[in-house]
């Protein structure tokens, strides 16, 4: 088993390199479990937001605050980045490291653009609408939920960037493949969370 491991590291890459070793399979499994925990984490944040979303304390309400075109653009960027991370995994399965690196890079750039829009949105609220963390229960819940998601995006950007660096140095092996696979899982997860944020926070905020 250990010699098979060494062959896999140095020799030809198996078809699904992320599942070629026990370490890799364990990593993918544990990451699914971790995402289960993350789902509870965001679920609790969503529940908190839903409980407090009309408690504006005479500050700005969701309807006054949100501009859907900006949020729609951010949503578009993040959804496309999820698609490009699928392309990256497909490139990995076809054993084309250069293509894999390119798609990962596109994913990171799209994620960074999303994060830029979010930072711009937050700073607009703080500067022009007097809508800060301390304004109301609604504002606290908004910044905490959306900010937690934003922090996840930021971490994902750093993580995938480090992985691109590893791909350049070490190439695509049975050690790097599971890392890339779980980072793609993570990226899809924060994408799904954003779909819920877009619906529950922004769309619901606009209608009432």
């Amino acid at each position, binding site marked *: 088993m250990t010699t098979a491991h060494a062959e896999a590291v140095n020799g030809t890459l198996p078809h699904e390199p992320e599942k070629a070793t026990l370490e890799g399979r364990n990593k993918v499994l544990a990451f699914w*479990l971790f995402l289960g925990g993350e789902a509870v984490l965001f679920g609790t944040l969503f529940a*908190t937001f839903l*409980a*407090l979303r009309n*408690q504006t*304390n005479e500050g700005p309400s969701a309807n006054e605050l949100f501009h859907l075109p900006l949020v729609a653009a951010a949503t578009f960027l993040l959804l496309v980045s999820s698609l490009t991370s699928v392309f990256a995994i497909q490139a990995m399965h076809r054993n084309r490291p250069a293509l894999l690196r390119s798609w990962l890079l596109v994913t990171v750039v799209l994620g960074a653009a999303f994060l830029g829009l979010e930072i711009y949105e937050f700073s607009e609220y703080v500067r022009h609408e007097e809508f800060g*963390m*301390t304004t109301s229960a609604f504002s*606290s819940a908004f910044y905490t939920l959306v900010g937690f998601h934003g922090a996840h995006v930021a971490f994902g950007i750093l993580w995938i960037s480090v992985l691109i660096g590893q791909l350049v140095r070490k190439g695509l092996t049975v050690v790097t493949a599971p890392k890339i696979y779980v980072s793609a899982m993570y990226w899809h997860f924060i994408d799904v969370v954003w779909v819920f944020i877009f619906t529950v926070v922004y769309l619901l905020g606009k209608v009432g």
Partner: protein
Amino acid sequence: MDWLTTVDHKKIAILYLWAGGLFFGIGGLEAILIRIQLIKPMNTFLDAQTFNELITMHGTTMIFLGVMPVIFALMNAVIPLQIGARDVAFPFLNALGFWTFLFGGILLNLSWIMGGAPDAGWTSYTPLSTTTYSATHGVDFYTIGLQIAGLGTLIGGINFLATIITMRAPGMSYMRMPMFAWTTFITSAIILFAFPAITVGLVLLTFDRILGANFFEVGGGGNPVLWQHIFWIFGHPEVYILILPAFGIISEVIPTFARKRLFGYSSMVFATILIAFLGFMVWAHHMFTTGLGPVANALFSVSTMLIAVPTGIKIFNWLFTMWGGQVRFTTPNLFAVGFIPTFTMGGVTGVMLASAPADFQFHDTYFVVAHFHYVIVGGLVLGLFAGLHYWWPKMFGRMLGEGLGKWTFWTFIIGFHMTFFVQHFLGLMGMQRRVFTYLPNQQFDLLNLISTIGAGLMGVGMLFFLANIFLTSRKPADAANDPWEDGRTLEWTIPSPPPEYNFKQTPLVRGIDAFWKEKTAGHKGMTPSEPVGSIHMPSATILPFLMSVGIFIAGLGFMFSRDTFSSEALSFLFNNYIVTGLGLLITFGSMLMRSLYDDHGWHIEPEELEGR
């Protein structure tokens, strides 16, 4: 130094045991101080503020830092052995989980010397725990300390789930796993789905207190009852995180010393799953008096009472296991047999509390205190004592003394019932919990005196246990592979303590109670499932320790980020989040190192295994 870098599950188990034991001792001393204050009416031994800090820290320390690490110690020591694995799925994460727990616990306990301990009760209900009513840093130590410690628990939970799913020896199907492995599996699943809720709750409370957010501030539109919901959505599953491992231990100890297989194995498995599932459905029974309305109260009453069904199944299965068996009353079995009636009493008062109209009378009285001490001390702690005496020879290679063990059992269990049985009646007579003193001549005096004497007796029991450990540690490590001679599961097939690779050859499992099955077939040991070969081991590393130090520094930095210090330089460092940033830099830097430098591990070759 070896201990700082180890990734061996057996050594991590011992680290968990010593750290958990230390915090258990601290929590125990806090309990003794509380009982001394309550020994007579209008006592002036402690002032009200100190009393509040003591009850808060007693509860928090015992639950999060005392019993949970000891549970993790037993899981770490036993689970890989029971499922026939050479280690857990993620040895690195295992070490990380321990160190984050330890530094979280240290941070929480630093509050005693850094401006006052938390004083809002172990549940830290808002608005009592907001800055308005709790102005010191006490509750910040609570939120951030528990956050860090909770991270460690979550990591441990994911690790055990993955370990049990993927690392079982050939032939060990799910329905052949020992019950302790099953309860560990289910407990880990509860940890995975319950701990993120308290993570969020603690973040929200931290933001309210440090960043001025309004989650629980009525003045800003917040809702204090929201805290109770979030806390108990975590908090109720937490009590099953505590008790299920004890059920597992009892299910190992009783069959061993009855020389009979566990009665109703599959019903035990499904009862465990059912308890875990129902455990998530009952959180609002802690909140009957907050005004949820009759429909919600009725639903949560019924779902709570339902839990008595699978729990009752377990109680009867243990009794039927002993029925007709050749029962030997060794120390572990004494604790296990003592567990059954004691825990049942706690379960019965639980059903009483589940009835919402009755709960309006019991709420926040000593009846509740008596109930949860019966399930946690009379249930879990007796279970842990059973498990520690049972697996001590496997962990350390030395049998604990039977004589002192029996003294431990009798003093502890008599002291326990003296302390808490009378508290049922104190509660029914109207004595409120969390009050630091009471007026004379309300018929509380005698019962409180009895309760305090009982607490002292429990303390004596602990001293017997410590003496037993000390005397045992001076004896030679000569325990046999199967020191109880009736071992049924895989951990008894290998030396005590096991070599670092556990199994020279991974065993082949042919049924429930794999070792017992081989014994009854006349075999001396297990049939191997592989030839002797080179064994891959993970490398020791300091990174888990460094990551935890980083989080610890970041937590302290964040906590004091709004304070003004006497020295300008300190104020600058803290107020601009430089300390926090530095801590996070250490943690993320260590994570980066872990990612960049592959751990290829090392091998133990067959020649080295010869003669072992």
